[in-house]
């Protein structure tokens, strides 16, 4: 089987800064990491390839330095990687991003399965996975917590819901987005590190994937960020409760009753 894993390089959340002029995230100087949810997508792709043979390809869209995240995917067993990178892709929202990724997936060709992480930790939208499926008109399953079975033509997965789970079967080609439950990502082997250092990561431009330039970047994005601001401050002080366990329990109970929580 031939698998594409879509990954995103994201800034480490704890030091995010916003440019007040452009309202964009200042990516320069910020530590970049592979989106944590995508590590589960990469691992699942590698495991399925190991079990059923074939090829697993990592795909990302981002600035040139996003190549580092693709190399990270290679270090844990992905066969090859492709980066979509061009100024024309800049400013893409989830509509335009999923369009470009879908075009790249078509260009790669003969793909059975696309695996994405549940969501990226910077935007938190969870929209790109289903967006790719919609652009390709493929079947989709989101919040996948286990791959139950695979045949040459179909996949059976367990989907997490708020009130439990369900098991569904889809014929290929299909898109799944995965949650942390699905596996435990491996650490890179020495051989993997060497492979990731050595490999070439081709960069594809809009022309390479036959993208309609009116559907990528800011032009292709129906949404516009018009303002960013810090969230309202939380509170001014912490009320500390100390004493014996019984005193602590009684004081807290009083606070809970005061607010009609109990």
């Amino acid at each position, binding site marked *: 089987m031939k698998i594409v894993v879509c990954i995103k390089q994201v800034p480490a959340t704890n030091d995010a800064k916003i440019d007040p002029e452009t309202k964009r995230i200042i990516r320069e100087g910020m530590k970049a990491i592979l989106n944590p949810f995508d590590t589960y997508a990469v691992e699942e792709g590698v495991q399925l390839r190991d079990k059923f043979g074939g090829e697993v390809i990592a795909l990302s869209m981002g600035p040139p330095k996003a190549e580092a995240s693709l190399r990270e995917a290679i270090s844990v067993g992905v066969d090859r990687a492709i980066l979509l990178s061009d100024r024309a892709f800049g400013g893409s929202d989830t509509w335009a991003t999923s369009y470009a990724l879908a075009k790249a997936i078509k260009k790669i060709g003969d793909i059975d399965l696309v695996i994405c992480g549940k969501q990226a930790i910077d935007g938190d939208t969870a929209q790109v996975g289903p967006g790719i499926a919609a652009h390709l008109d493929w*079947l989709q399953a989101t919040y996948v917590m286990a791959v139950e079975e695979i045949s040459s033509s179909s996949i059976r997965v367990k989907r997490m*819901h708020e009130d439990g789970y*369900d098991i569904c079967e889809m014929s290929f080609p299909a898109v799944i987005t995965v949650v942390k439950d699905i596996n435990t990502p491996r650490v890179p082997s020495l051989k993997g590190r060497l492979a990731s250092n050595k490999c070439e990561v081709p960069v594809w431009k809009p022309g390479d994937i036959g993208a309609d330039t009116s559907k990528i970047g800011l032009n292709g994005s129906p949404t516009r960020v018009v303002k960013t601001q810090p969230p309202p401050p939380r509170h001014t002080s912490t009320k500390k409760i100390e004493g014996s366990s019984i005193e602590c329990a009684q004081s807290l109970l009083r606070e809970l009753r005061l607010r009609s929580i*109990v």
Partner: protein
Amino acid sequence: MIAFTDAKRKEYRNIWVVAEILAGGIQSVTHELTGAARTLADLRKSEVWVVVMGSGIEEKPESLFAYGADVVIVVDHPGLSGFIDETEAKIMKRLIIKYKPEVVICGATTRGRALIPRVSVMTHCGLTADCTGLSIDPENGDLLQTRPAFGGNIMATIRCSNHRPQMATVRPRVMKSPEPDPGRTGRIIKEEMLTSDSEKIKQIIDVFHSTETAYNLADAQIIISGGRGMKGPEGFKLLKQFAQRVGGAAVGASRAAVDSGWIPYAHQVGQTGQTVQTKVYIACGISGQIQHLVGMQSCDLIIAIDKNPDTPMMQIADIAVVGDLFEIIPEIVKGITNL
């Protein structure tokens, strides 16, 4: 992408809500969103429409009028008993083309977050996830959507002026459910499911509904959450008792507790778990690493219980209880029982 002209924009009217149906019942998030849609529709002097898709819908769709709906579109078909994203997306696309809504709001649930991105691509619309605030320009109908990003570190306001409808998802419990007005009435429109809606779709093999109400973090008003300080699965039994005593509470957990196998992943709060915005968050034995804090720092009231008064969680908490939670929590449980 070609922007809509003014004339074309004006063809799109009314505020729509996609109902969340579980096991034939209309979920409370639907009432909350109907109330929010009412406010927007009043500003635009337009109507609130709710789309109900399901099979054997037991609850009368008319009940939604009381929450502010003017029209309820009902698609009731056995093919909609399980959640099949592809079918529901095709139906939504058809309804949108037929009736031209200005705004479509959907619950940011696992189902909503799977369905609406698909619909937005199929209909070429902008979509904003997990909005915490919605307002509308009464003149031109532009929806201003406010949402947290970077785990709540910034608030972004998003607009989609050039396309209609404008789509947004909102988490359960973010909007207040309106007081139902049993005197309100409205119209029901019955729509069919077409055979083409169920072509090329997935098969639902099995469905498992958890009977454990504490499972559902997204729908809870209060979360009682445990970390490494709970010391083992026994500790979480204590938290479950606590949650049962407090009305409407769910049990959450830190990554450390989930990775230790003390409680299933569905309970995990934080960067690789769920982001929650409850009224009350009680953190028990959670030190508060940044990855956990970004998942819960938007909760209204944060209470922390820990032996160590100096952890990040104890610093950001509104109320910090310093002490042995294995002694304090049983006392609280006793205290609530004796009320």
